């Protein structure tokens, strides 16, 4: 039989490396917030002729938009993000660009005042906090009949934090490289994914509880591994079906909900991984009190003695 629990140290190592990369990226690139949170304006324009991005950047600088961020979103299509614009500012800007680069049409315009941005940020933060409390309450409730509710709950929360951190980390990397921003849909996606990943963990833990009750006294590690293998196909299959539709969204709807689809994609993969490869293994390590063994096992300099 597949021994997933036996390879727990390796799984922790993989996950640790991923988390480390995410943390490094978060601390170097940080997260770029979209206009919903930081205020400003986005104008999406479509030029009839192909326009060079550098030329556009230069022209915007000449016009005084020195902080403008430009994204090329398709043939002749550009997204220009800048400070808040009044209707007049925007008309002047578009006229100036049309004069330089030929006819253009505006496909989208979004302007958010600082007041609205502050309000949105505050309410999004409240929503995240309430969601966190709600999910914690749910975990407490879902694990109330588990043998050691505190252990199970804590492991589920660690798995949840793992998923959120990976989603944030991936977005900070994408932000650093491609200029992707954190918007409301990102928050929405992260919350949806966290809910989903907690479900996955609950399914696996539920199986462990059931097998522990069955009563055949084998050691904890074997019970957890058996439970994992038994719930493997259903965990993978529920994630797979969801991944299919997310991929369809990503490839066929594209740019506009790209951020959202990518959060879901990353989150579902991370959530499946954490519920199968992190949370149950953590339970075993905790049960057996082998944190010390894990530290020793790690190929850190100075601790060469592998057992």
């Amino acid at each position: 039989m597949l021994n997933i629990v036996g390879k727990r140290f390796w799984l922790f190592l993989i996950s640790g490396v991923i988390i480390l990369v995410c943390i490094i990226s978060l601390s170097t690139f940080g997260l770029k917030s979209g206009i919903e949170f930081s205020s400003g304006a986005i104008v999406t324009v479509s030029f009839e002729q192909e326009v060079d991005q550098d030329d556009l950047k230069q022209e915007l600088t000449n016009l005084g938009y020195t902080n403008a961020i430009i994204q090329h979103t398709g043939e002749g299509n550009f997204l220009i993000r800048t400070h808040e614009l009044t209707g007049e500012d925007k008309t002047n800007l578009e006229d100036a660009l049309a004069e330089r680069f030929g006819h253009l049409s505006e496909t989208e315009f979004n302007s958010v005042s600082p007041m609205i941005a502050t309000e949105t940020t505050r309410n999004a933060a409240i929503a995240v906090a309430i969601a966190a409390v709600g999910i914690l309450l749910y975990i407490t409730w879902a694990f109330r009949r588990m043998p050691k509710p505190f252990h199970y709950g804590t492991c589920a929360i660690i798995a949840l934090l793992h998923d959120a951190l990976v989603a944030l980390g991936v977005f900070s990397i994408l932000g650093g490289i491609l200029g992707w921003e954190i918007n409301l849909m990102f928050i929405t996606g992260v919350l949806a994914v966290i809910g989903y990943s907690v479900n996955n963990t609950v399914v696996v833990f539920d199986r462990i509880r059931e097998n522990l009750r069955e009563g055949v006294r084998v050691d904890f590690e074997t019970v957890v591994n058996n439970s994992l293998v038994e719930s493997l196909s259903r965990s993978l299959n529920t994630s797979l079906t969801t991944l299919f539709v997310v991929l369809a969204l990503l490839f066929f709807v594209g740019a506009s909900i790209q951020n959202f689809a990518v959060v879901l994609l990353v989150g579902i993969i991370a959530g499946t991984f954490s519920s199968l490869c992190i949370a149950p293994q953590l339970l075993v390590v905790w049960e057996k009190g082998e944190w010390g063994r894990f530290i020793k096992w790690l190929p850190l300099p100075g601790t060469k003695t592998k057992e």
Partner: protein
Amino acid sequence: MPRRNTLVLIIVLVIFALALSIVLPLNKGALGGRGIRLGLDLQGGIHIVYKADLSSIEQGERDSAIEGVIAVLSNRINPLGVTEPVIQRQGNDRILVELPGLDITDKEKESLGRVDILKFGELAAEEEEARWENELGRWKPATAIVDGEEKVLSSQYFKENTYVTRYERTGEILLIFEWNEEGSKLSEEITGRLIEQRMGIFEGDEALRGDDGRPIAPFVQSTITGTGQISGLSLNDAERLSKQLNYGRLPVPLEIIYDQTVSPILGADFIDMSLKAGLIGIALVMLFMIFYYRLPGLMASLALIFYGVLVLALFKLFGVTLNLAGIGGFVLSIGMAVDANVLIFERMKEEIRSGRTLGAAIETGFDRAWTAIRDSNVTTFIVCGILYWLGSSIVASAPVMGFALTLLIGVAVSMLTAIVVTRTLLRLFVGTRLAQRTSLFSIYSRKDNA
């Protein structure tokens, strides 16, 4: 049991037929209702939030001031021909305006929230600060002191009886207006001072321009009181202005604090793309379910079709507005809808392996998986509820609310379809010869090495 199952099957089929008749055609109304409502990002349009500056209005009269603003905005918006405009008060001093499907110029958009549609100006002296600049020079607002207060001459003092006519001899277009009492005094004062000088007319930040493209800035011939006229406009501009001037004036200044404008062309692409994504998503899920779970997978796929139709019917019945994020939520819910089936089928496989008959396996499979299904949807419900609250508390609410609502409806309906419909369909096979062929249930006795 079989008889009861047949009954359930009939009910399911009736609901399916009903739902289908509601859903098709997608763009038309069902049972007297409308087609599926599309959000701003899909059909294009304008979403603006204004903040009214109520600082000059006394506490007790603020409500009526806001009502006045809404009335004037409605007057200005109605002639634009928007089918379902939304003009709504939000909180104390905000007004939400949603104009779906509308494609208007920036100038028209600006004029919606303008207090004074037209302002009059005089040339500024060298050292004076200019409000406008054009080929005729630098301009400042024309002001005079009336009742001990300095006021700017503007269309704020027009009576609401402005009209367009033609000058008989030359056919020139004239916009005729009448000053109210205050305006008359102002005009008398100002035009008296400006005789033989130009008086500029400005719309917002720009000079009002005539049919010939030149700024309209006539020389004042004599003191003007009572009525006045603006000549040289194009017929279109004159008629537009006359309408706008007669729609009443805003009691307080408005400031745009949120603006989202989407061109309708963009939206059409999204509808095509998201339809494609939905269909491909559903096809992939069905193929996977059939490939992996065989006969039960096929039944789950049928249930999924039922699910899709039922959810769309509910969207239509409850008037859920579908935007891009909402479609995202719906598509996501398709993927999650079969999760319940996966849980059940995995259970069934175990039951069959442990020697139960198909009938018994179906019943225990469904019974035992129920708690897991219920529990595993709880977090989704919690998250949807919180997102819905978030959506209702912020200005840029449409995507978040759209997603929360469609996902919530989707998951709730899927619990019903994945369980009731799939079970009913599967029970049809109990006792038939097909039930003996375990390969149809993806049970392979030899390969079973678990």
